[in-house]
């Protein structure tokens, strides 16, 4: 993207720092940047903050956060959100940062998959293990159907009107879309490997009622093969729980097998990488591009440990250097939150 184009677009958000990723480390970056008067905007592809802690293990206890002998992934997220509240960061959820480039004015121009544009003085990549993406069932040739007949999310319900739809999975996404699409679709089949569902009990009840009325057919089994041509699905072969094979005529599939982490767009931003991780120094946690930092699970340096604790340390040092870029005219004085009245003012301490 050329600079003149970027500037021509009206409505680009301007901000001191963009934090890519709202995992624990991205959230604490808001805190450390806030202490040195840097305003932040945080973007995450997930629909809520917390990264791995909230998505993969919200209920599991973590035992190695200093001074919190035990805290669950969700509690840690909630406490971080409370701690960073005084800084009034802006949050954008459900969007992935796809493009990152330096413009001629020296600032960074970012673009999300939703077309949102942001201009920032510094960028903090806190992308963890990468962006969460839906798992792709390892069915032969599935790539050719993606976007045409195989969908990992529903963007427009209308796209499914009049189709023979197959939904695969046993959690809330599978159940919710079964309930929502059944009235629109020509036929709707819900397939799951066992006759037990993880979703909310009332959704399970509603689904069973639709099955009893003959409006949804429930198949206990797994898809083993896709049939069709040039991305247009005609049927699938399914193996049912008793081992029998069955052919189902369908022209749209929604597979819901959870999420996995993929490095994704970060790989294409021209940064020096080491086996899919962004190389940084251990003084400023800056990447090969000045003004772009990488913190938390996404970075690598000799001795790196993928611990939340280490990420917290990294953002404190990163913020010192970020301050030099954002407020070059100001001298940074080292201060403690305990004793500095100016820091306490920022934190809203009364």
């Amino acid at each position, binding site marked *: 993207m050329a600079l003149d184009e970027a500037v021509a677009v009206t409505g680009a958000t301007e901000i001191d720092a963009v934090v890519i990723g709202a995992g624990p480390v991205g959230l604490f970056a808001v805190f450390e940047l806030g202490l040195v008067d840097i305003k932040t905007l945080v973007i995450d592809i997930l629909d809520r903050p917390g990264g791995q802690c909230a998505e993969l293990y919200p209920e599991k206890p973590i035992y190695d956060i200093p001074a919190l002998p035990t805290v669950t992934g969700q509690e840690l997220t909630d406490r971080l959100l409370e701690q960073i509240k005084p800084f009034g960061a802006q949050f954008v959820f459900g969007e992935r940062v796809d493009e990152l480039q330096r413009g001629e004015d020296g600032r960074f121009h970012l673009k999300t998959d939703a077309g949102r544009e942001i201009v920032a003085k510094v960028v903090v990549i806190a992308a963890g293990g990468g962006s969460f993406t839906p798992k792709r069932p390892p069915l032969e040739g599935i790539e050719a159907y993606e976007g045409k007949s195989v969908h990992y999310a529903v963007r427009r319900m209308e796209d499914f009107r009049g189709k023979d739809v197959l939904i695969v999975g046993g*959690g809330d996404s599978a159940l919710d879309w079964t309930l929502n699409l059944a009235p629109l679709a020509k036929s709707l089949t819900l397939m799951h490997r066992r006759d037990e569902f993880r979703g909310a009990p009332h959704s399970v009840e509603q689904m069973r009622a639709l099955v009893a009325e003959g409006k949804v057919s429930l198949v206990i089994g797994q898809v083993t093969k896709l049939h069709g041509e040039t991305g247009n699905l005609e049927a699938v072969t399914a193996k049912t729980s008793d081992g029998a094979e069955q052919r189902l005529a369908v022209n749209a599939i929604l597979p819901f097998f*959870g999420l*996995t982490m993929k490095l994704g767009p970060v790989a294409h931003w021209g940064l020096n990488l080491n086996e899919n991780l962004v190389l940084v120094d251990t003084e400023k946690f800056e990447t090969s591009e000045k003004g772009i930092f990488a913190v938390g699970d996404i970075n690598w340096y000799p001795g790196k440990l993928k611990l939340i604790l280490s990420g917290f340390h990294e953002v404190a040092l990163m913020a010192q250097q970020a301050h030099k870029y954002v407020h070059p005219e100001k001298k940074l004085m080292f201060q403690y939150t305990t004793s500095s009245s100016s820091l306490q003012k920022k934190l809203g301490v009364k």
Partner: protein
Amino acid sequence: MVKLTFVQPDGASRTVDAEPGVTVMEAAKLNDIPGIEAECGGACACATCHVYVDPEWVDKTGKPEAIEEDMLDFAFDVRKESRLSCQIKVTPDLDGLTVRVPAKQF
């Protein structure tokens, strides 16, 4: 030490020694067994440590608990003998256990 055998989809197999108390996933990782990814490090949160327990051993390894069953929903080609290897603790009882690694972990 307990002997564990991992069979690959192409039939190649390797037998390794495991210390009682570790999990079958940990034994696989310690011995660089291909095809066991274990992205979440054994927290029963990723389903990328899926294995098929040899039918003769299913009684000894036992049945998955509810959270493991839920997580198995995220694995591919799940069968009756499917388990998440991070949820099987190695005990002296399991000496000689054979598990098969699936063709894909997703």
